[in-house]
């Protein structure tokens, strides 16, 4: 059994890309500024030198064409990975992702397949303001025919990216820039994290906290604080947003009777609402309290740091949500 080592999410993603490009010669990666400089955060560093300019190359700033080229390459049997430099730019690529990649297998009765990964950083929480801070998973979760992945640890980032690259479906892979430097234990040697499986990071009995992305990262610290306060939180990191691991979250909420869903996207029409709806359908008779959500406010994201903290999901907001829910139900129960 090989030793796990502590590396950052950016390094873990880089390892995944190196391993998968080595493993499958059909795989290639392209996007803006990914080649010589290894991308803005080193996620693609070393790939160009190792695999050459045919398989690792920079593109012009042309998100529609970049995304569409990934679709076309996938259709003829290659395995493209395309980087969107900042995931707010998903809007520019959305026609190719939603109207083409997601639909071609279905529209062609299964004749055509689109094995591609669209990946890139969500730049929330570092003061880049409204057009460089959005977590837009709600847009793509809504479209049938896509898988949507959002890791929050180095081990998950590497294992999920490897699985995503090998998956024959079009996948939107949301990374979080704020978490690129977060370090964690990653197994040495070959391993995969399966898509569609949530992880129970911490078992508990009082309340289920279902989180993803930066919210999941904050939640990991929050649940330790809450433990000291005598609140036993079952923390679930979804890891894959679509397909949602309904079995795991339902089993948990049936056990605890209380659920909070925390998500980096905006509140209204956000991904948390989808999880809540599913839980209401499946666990209503087991609930001791209404399900709550913690999400970004329904405002564009401001630049000033204090305003940013006002609208984004923070550790304090998670703590407050759990305390209120558990406190309220305990008050009722007395």
């Amino acid at each position, binding site marked *: 059994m090989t030793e796990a080592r502590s590396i950052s999410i950016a390094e873990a993603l880089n390892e995944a890309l190196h391993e998968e490009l080595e493993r499958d010669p059909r795989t290639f990666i392209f996007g803006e500024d990914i080649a010589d400089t290894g991308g803005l955060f080193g996620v693609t560093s070393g790939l160009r030198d190792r695999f050459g300019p045919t398989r690792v190359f920079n593109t012009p700033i042309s998100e529609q064409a970049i995304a569409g080229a*990934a679709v076309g*390459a996938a259709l*003829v049997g290659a395995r493209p990975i395309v980087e969107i430099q900042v995931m707010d730019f998903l809007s520019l690529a959305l026609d*190719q992702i939603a109207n083409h990649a997601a639909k071609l297998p279905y529209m*062609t009765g*299964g004749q*055509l*397949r689109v094995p591609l990964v669209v990946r890139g950083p969500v730049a929330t929480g570092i003061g880049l303001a409204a057009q460089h801070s959005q977590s837009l998973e709600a847009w793509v979760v809504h479209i049938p025919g896509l*898988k949507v992945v959002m890791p929050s640890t180095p081990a998950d980032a590497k294992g999920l990216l490897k699985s995503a690259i090998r998956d*024959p479906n079009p996948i939107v892979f949301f990374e979080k820039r704020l978490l690129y430097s977060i370090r964690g234990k990653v197994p040495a040697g070959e391993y995969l994290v399966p898509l569609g499986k949530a992880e129970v990071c911490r078992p508990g009995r009082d309340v289920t906290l279902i989180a993803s992305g930066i919210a999941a990262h904050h939640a990991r610290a929050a649940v330790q604080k809450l433990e000291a306060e005598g609140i036993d939180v079952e923390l679930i990191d979804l890891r894959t947003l679509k397909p949602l691991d309904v079995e795991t979250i339902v089993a948990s909420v049936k056990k605890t009777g209380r659920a909070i869903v925390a998500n980096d996207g905006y509140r209204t029409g956000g991904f948390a609402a989808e999880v809540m709806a599913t839980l209401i359908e499946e666990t209503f008779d087991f609930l001791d309290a209404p399900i709550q959500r913690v999400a970004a406010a329904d405002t564009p994201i401001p630049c000033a740091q204090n305003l940013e903290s006002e609208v984004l999901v923070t550790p304090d907001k998670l703590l407050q949500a759990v305390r209120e829910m558990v406190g309220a139900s305990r008050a009722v129960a007395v």
Partner: protein
Amino acid sequence: MSDVSEAPPISLIDKSLGLNEQKLLDMYSVIWRIRWFEEKVLDLFRAGVIRGTAHLYSGMEAVATGACAALRPTDYVTSTHRGHGHALAKGLEPDRMLAEIIGRADGYCKGKGGSMHVASAKHGMLGADAIVGGNTPIAVGAALGARILGRDDVVLCFFGDGAANQGVLFESMNLASVLKLPVIFLCENNLWALSTPTSVSLSVPDVAARGAAFNMPGVVLDGQDVLAVYEGARAAVERGRAGQGPSLLECKTYRIHSHSAFATREVRPEEEVAYWRARDPIRILGERLEQAGVASSTTLEVIKAREERRIAEAAEFALASPTPDAAEAYTDVLVDAASDEHVVGRTAG
């Protein structure tokens, strides 16, 4: 002004162009096949058998026929919402196409795609596309993917005068150019995008002029002359396969019918429609074949009748095909890993 070149006239039987009697008669057959097919589609729409609408290629047959004749079976085509002609010229069978258009189980796409999403993986026909211009970056990607896989396949990318102003087309042309990919961007300029003429939408007289903006040759071709289209396409294919990058072809053409079967009101000037009706690609090719002694009028009549019969049989097949199983509504949304190793477009020829 713009340095747009026009294709020179060619002689009919020219071995250097890959033209022989059989190939010429095949072209004549395909043009009639498309003509009869689209008339059948119109009949079926009017009879209420085809729902939604259909965008007919009638009058434009020489473009698809000439261009696809320049391809190898393993080359790719990306198509538009007006794609029946492209599909037939690429070798798709009329019976399974009609079944698809009327939503039956034996259609190429199991009845799930319909007219605007007809596709055949084994023919390298990567789909009709209902997003105007949406197929253009996909064409670039298909060429890119073929390169990654070590193949020299070229990609024929159809689009219209409507798509000629979509930003995604410009991105795609630029990307194909900087990557030197073998994409043949073929504009079918039929002068009208639904009810909007190019005189108000297009900022230049010739779409071909935009080739220079992306460092590729831009050639205007007579879209009613299948041999002119064939020669222009063949040169572009050779250029691409020789590693010289993409080309832009503009075929001046015209659709006989309105934008879609659903829109019955003709918005175009009567004289204009009459002018183009007279420039019938079937008549133009037929006269050239007879004048060159390649075919007698009898031969041409035989071909015309044979293709009519073929389409009639296709309609029988399609109408007899069952509706899809209800369960098919839920298949092909996501695909599983088990049957991952498919290869598109590697038909035996």
